[in-house]
């Protein structure tokens, strides 16, 4: 539920999404201790609370736009060295997949522009899978890969800092 709330806030354009998800869960927990809560549709209840938290956050955030924008633009841009490191981490992490999955993942992400849809449909056809199922499968593999790359980069940064 927390992960889902984080997505909810991120897709509403909020930035400190983990705090907002925790705030929502705290409020839900407090409400649940009250006897008059209808729990027939708990998800609807949680998302209702989340929308309220988001609304309050947006009202508060409005006062801090100039500050946060300034912080974002002040971040250093990614350098070629950063991207080289990311590529190396990505190559290493790809090895955790089977050769078949690795080829599938790279082939799925290779084509650009207009060619992409045709190639992805061709892959789905070869696998006798629906395109939607292929997308979801690729997304899940990509999540694993992205998490692995983050760990690799964090470990590299840690070893450089020590």
């Amino acid at each position, binding site marked *: 539920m927390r992960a*889902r709330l984080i*997505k*909810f806030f991120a*897709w509403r354009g909020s*930035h400190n999404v983990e705090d907002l998800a925790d705030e929502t869960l705290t409020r839900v927990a407090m409400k649940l201790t009250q006897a008059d809560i209808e729990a027939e549709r708990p*998800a609807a209840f*949680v*998302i209702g609370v989340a929308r309220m938290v988001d609304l309050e956050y947006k009202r508060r955030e409005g006062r801090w736009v100039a500050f*946060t924008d300034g912080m*974002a633009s002040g*971040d250093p841009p*990614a350098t*070629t060295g950063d*991207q*080289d490191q*990311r*590529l*190396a981490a*990505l*190559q*290493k992490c*790809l*090895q955790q997949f089977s*050769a*078949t*999955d690795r*080829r599938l993942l*790279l*082939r799925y*992400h*290779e*084509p*650009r*522009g*207009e*060619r992409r*849809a*045709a190639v992805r449909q061709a892959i*789905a*056809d*070869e*696998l*006798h*899978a*629906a*395109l*939607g*199922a*292929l*997308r*979801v*499968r*690729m*997304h*899940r593999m*990509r*999540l694993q*890969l*992205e998490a692995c*790359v983050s760990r690799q980069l964090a470990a590299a940064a840690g070893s450089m800092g020590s």
Partner: protein
Amino acid sequence: VIDRDAHPGRPVVPPAEIERLWRFLLNELSEPERIAIEDEFFVDDDRLAIVESAEDELIDAYARGELPEERRQRFEKRFLATASQRARVAFASALATLAADGARVPEADAPTPLRPRAPTAPSRRRLRPIIWQAAMAAALVLGLGALSPRLLGWRRVTEIDVALSPGSLRGEPEIPTVHVPAKKARLKLKLKLKLVEPLRDDGDTFDLLLRRELEQPKPLLASRAPDGESLTAALDPSGLAPGTYELTARARHRGGAAEDIAVYLFRIDTP
């Protein structure tokens, strides 16, 4: 790789649905439309995964410079605000680079660093929708069965001309088929790959990636024909299993950037 049981009855996400989800992610929907999508993904794991995969595709499109200006600005406002969001975009860019260099991904555990490609730039020779070019597919069905056994007995190389045009899609009946006899001696396929647009001689080099199904692509050298209307290459068909092959022609510019210029499909058939 894919859960085949999921195919029947599993809703296919059409491009229009992806477009709707991109509008959701870029805050281009009305509040009621937004709420409808939120209500769906909040209670349905499959819907959540579909929205997440649409988000992947949106990030990829940005990382490859494929979003129109207005959407690019909207994306940057919404998806580049935090360090973790910027890391996701950097990841997408790295994945696109590595996927484009797929032929060079090592199979061994030891990773080999790759040089990043030049930043995405508008293509000089954009690939046209290949399905519309299917009509140009030229099949050369080879009468190798008629080859003299005496000739095959000699250890000389038999050259076979194969002309291909871009555009055939897998599953289409007009994909050119190369019939390779079981008792082949030494064969060489002389590939002539017709181009959608003539290539000027501006110092580019060319190569091909030959791939069957999900196998690792095999690189081949190619040359520009003097008239610029086609690329030529030679391929030894021995060791090629029967099946459909995809041949991606790539131009390498002087600066080192590579660009896909056409895709060809053909079948290898053996008795």
